[in-house]
């Protein structure tokens, strides 16, 4: 298997790198990769005491445990902070989703959950498939609209077949992919015109499918080892195509989830009504819910508009509701990323990444002026302004990543990418097909799909309540697929020494983690940030860590600045005219391989804001970039020996992670 070969190459190179001469020790302002040093000899004739890092003292050959003089040495005392990032997908569709089952997806929620847990399944196109590594948790988020009705329809449910329209759609679905797609289009059209046959919207179908969905989650939920979160997607396509979708994630299990059916867009397309439903649901059941919106990039300016759904000016009450129900935003998935856009962040050399920026969900072209209300970095900035104006920040979003797969397979690894629909499962020409085609609107091509992403959750344990609580406090980060470990803490007292030890100990003791809030100090001290990242064990080395700051000035204008705070190959790279020397590129595109001979496996640093203004509202988040590695299109080239002739098609990618921000709020 390809990933095994890469693992071997990576491991050999890492082992070789371990014997290399020491890198220069960290300096202020960046450039401090974890220092290389001589290997330690223990157990047997000591070849001499060595040090792991320059300034922590020597190891007694007899007992390296004396090495770490951490405060509160007892390993069990006070250790209730999160210790392992738990990786999962909060966005999976299966055959039970209207637009997945309708185009032939055969993977049920049960198989999709088994796949996420690491089992092998057979994909819709008949190919055996398995994740390179199991996920820690998954949320199956089938659409609440027509939930399960589609599989009843395809299966020829006797009651449904009494309706002539439903019978016709049933036959079309069985007559082939073209007919099936037409049936789905007719169904979507009928839904948007409120002309669906009543049998399809009959709550009894939804009730039985919802109950079956919950049963599957209960069957596979294994506290401590694997969590199956109960969830669904509320799929608002406002005005016929402006994406305002939200995933609803339940904290609780069957007892509470079974009491109320999911909210649908037959009832409302307006997120403000969704929040009202969530309020009623919590009152009725005593449970907890949260919502995660996605694809700002396909909302044609509506996702982060500075007005309510109806176009009125925002109010504190509106902002309170939004902030209360929506702690996270899914910033990257198969339909591109919604973190940053080159037209908004003109000095960000990494913003032009996996862009889907031409239209909305049905590819109705964007109008000028819409993009600024679609990307979360701009929203984070605008949120500071709304807070200054009305008192609450409606866009106080932490970051998440998911796939939005519609073939049941949460497969975001570049060398294992099974695409969004069954038609995009691996085949030689999938890069060149029309992935999305609505009427005469511009087409989205297969190569534009992104092999992403996952959410890493810093939960105290792998259970529903602990994962949900961590999402609610925004202690999460999004990744484009790889499972790098990222820590990000903000406080006023971090020092260089804190970068040489376990970050969590100093981080939680002296600061707040990602998703947290900083209050000002009386002395107006500048905040310091402790940030660390460790590569995915099978993935590429790290290029650099950046800290992205956004703030509101006294004239009510927002700004952003990107700081490169630590990078690999520190001895060979420096910042000139505000740009860091690029890390290089070891990708061999003909074979879809790379080598971890550039960059670093781990980066840690402490950084202080050199441009801090204690009177300005601000946020900071970390973005971690890997070295270039092959993109899924390149793995297709190598596997199918196909020629990708279009120069627009990227064959390499720099995978990345974005943490939830830490917010700074000045005194009133």
């Amino acid at each position, binding site marked *: 298997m390809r990933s095994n070969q890469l693992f071997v190459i990576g491991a050999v190179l890492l082992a070789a790198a371990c014997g290399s001469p020491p890198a220069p020790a960290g300096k202020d302002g960046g450039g401090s990769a974890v220092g290389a040093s001589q290997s330690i000899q223990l157990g047997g004739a000591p070849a001499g005491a060595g040090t792991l890092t320059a300034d922590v003292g020597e190891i007694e050959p007899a007992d390296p445990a004396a090495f770490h003089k951490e405060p509160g040495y007892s390993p069990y005392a006070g250790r209730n902070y999160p210790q392992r990032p738990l990786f999962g997908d909060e966005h999976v569709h299966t055959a039970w989703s209207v637009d997945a089952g309708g185009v032939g997806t*055969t993977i049920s929620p049960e198989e999709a959950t088994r796949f996420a847990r690491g089992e092998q399944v057979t994909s819709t196109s008949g190919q055996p498939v398995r994740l390179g590594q199991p996920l820690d948790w998954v949320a199956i988020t089938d659409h609440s609209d027509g939930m399960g009705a589609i599989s009843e329809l395809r299966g020829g449910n006797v009651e449904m077949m009494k309706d002539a329209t439903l019978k016709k759609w049933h036959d079309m679905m069985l007559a082939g992919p073209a007919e099936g797609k037409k049936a789905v289009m007719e169904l*979507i*059209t009928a839904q948007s015109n409120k002309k669906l046959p009543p049998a399809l919207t009959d709550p009894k179908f939804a009730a039985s499918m919802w109950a079956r969905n919950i049963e599957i989650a209960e069957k596979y939920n294994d506290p401590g080892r694997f969590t199956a979160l109960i969830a669904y997607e509320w799929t608002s396509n406002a005005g016929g*195509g402006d994406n305002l979708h939200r995933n609803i994630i339940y904290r609780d299990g069957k007892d509470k989830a079974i009491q109320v059916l999911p909210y649908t867009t037959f009832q409302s397309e307006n997120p403000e009504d969704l929040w009202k439903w969530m309020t009623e649901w919590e009152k009725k059941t005593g449970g907890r819910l949260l919502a995660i919106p996605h694809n700002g990039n396909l909302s044609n300016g509506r996702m982060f508009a500075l007005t309510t759904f109806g176009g009125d000016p925002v109010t504190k009450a509106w902002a309170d509701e939004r902030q209360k129900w929506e702690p996270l935003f899914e910033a990257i998935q198969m339909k591109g990323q919604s973190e940053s856009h080159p037209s908004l962040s003109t000095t960000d050399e990494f913003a032009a990444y996996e862009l889907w920026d031409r239209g909305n969900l049905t590819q109705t072209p964007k109008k000028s002026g819409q993009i600024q209300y679609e990307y979360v970095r701009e929203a984070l900035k605008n949120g500071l302004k709304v807070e200054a104006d009305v008192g609450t920040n409606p866009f106080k979003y932490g970051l998440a990543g998911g796939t939005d797969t519609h073939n049941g397979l949460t497969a975001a690894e570049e060398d294992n990418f099974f695409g969004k629909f069954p038609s995009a499962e691996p085949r030689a020409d999938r890069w060149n097909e029309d992935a999305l085609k609505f009427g005469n609107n511009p087409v989205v091509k297969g190569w534009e799909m992104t092999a992403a992403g996952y959410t890493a959750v810093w939960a105290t344990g792998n259970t529903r309540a602990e994962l949900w609580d961590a999402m609610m406090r925004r202690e999460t980060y999004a990744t484009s697929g790889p499972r790098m470990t990222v820590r990000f803490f903000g406080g006023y007292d971090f020092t260089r020494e804190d970068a040489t030890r376990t970050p969590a100990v100093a981080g939680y003791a002296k600061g707040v983690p990602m998703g947290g809030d900083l209050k000002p100090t009386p002395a107006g001290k500048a905040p310091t940030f402790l940030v660390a990242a460790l590569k995915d064990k099978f993935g590429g080395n790290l290029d650099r860590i950046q800290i992205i700051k956004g703030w509101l000035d006294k004239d009510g204008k927002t700004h952003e600045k990107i700081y490169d705070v630590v990078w690999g190959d520190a001895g060979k790279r420096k910042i000139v005219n505000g740009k860091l020397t690029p890390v290089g590129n070891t990708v061999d595109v003909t074979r879809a391989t790379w080598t971890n001979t550039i960059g670093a*496996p781990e980066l840690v640093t402490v950084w202080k804001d050199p441009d801090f203004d204690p009177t300005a509202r601000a946020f900071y988040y970390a973005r971690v970039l890997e070295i270039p590695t092959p993109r899924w299109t390149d793995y297709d080239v190598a596997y199918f020996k196909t020629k990708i002739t279009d120069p627009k098609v990227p064959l390499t990618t720099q995978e990345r992670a974005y943490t939830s921000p830490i917010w700074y709020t000045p005194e009133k």
Partner: protein
Amino acid sequence: MRIRRILGEPMLHFLFIGIALFAVYSRMSPGSRSSGNHIVITQAVVDDLVTQHTAARGRAPSPIELGHLLENWVREEILYREGVALGLDRDDIVVKRRVRQKLEVMAEEEAQTTPPTDAELAAYLSAHLDRFTQPAILSFEQRGRSVLLPHRMLEMPADLVARDFGPSFAQALERAPIGAWTGPITSSFGVHYARVSARTPPVVPRLEEVRDQVVREWENDRRQHARDESYAKMRAGYRISVEATLPGEQR
């Protein structure tokens, strides 16, 4: 060649009949298209195109746009009929797969009626011990180059240790002596020294301890097997003969 043998199977005739039935049905159902080389654009067709356009664009099509939509619809209809006349739908692997899937789902639903007996579960457990064996549980400290890898893990299953450190590290810990620092041990991140403070070996559970999981896996297997069993039954009713030269053979 395998494919030729399959194409020779009477299953294909079964599919032809099925598709012919679908074709006959759709000709008889309301809103279906007229046959032969006369194409009728009915009100239903026009309404459909208008509502699809409206849903996508937020407004009804202009007369010129509607003209284009209708031309495109006619073009697709003509190509579809010409394709069907050439038998292109009969050789369509996706059509075949769809009918196959429907039969397999029917077989699975039939099989789901009876719950497993204790005897069946016990037999399943013995036959698949590797799936239910609980991995070794490790408590250890480690030191290496990374500051992010945990220095201590308490009562962690070996497979989760492998997820963080890599499989070779977990395996080394399963064999390491208890209480003493050992190394160097290689993980996916380089070299470590580790001390295992406690370890429980893998445990083969009794049925009572893992009953729910065994039932779940047993039912999952039955779902897979239901397809095979139902196919075996159908197969028994067919005679297959090969009337082709397979590559590598000589006549």
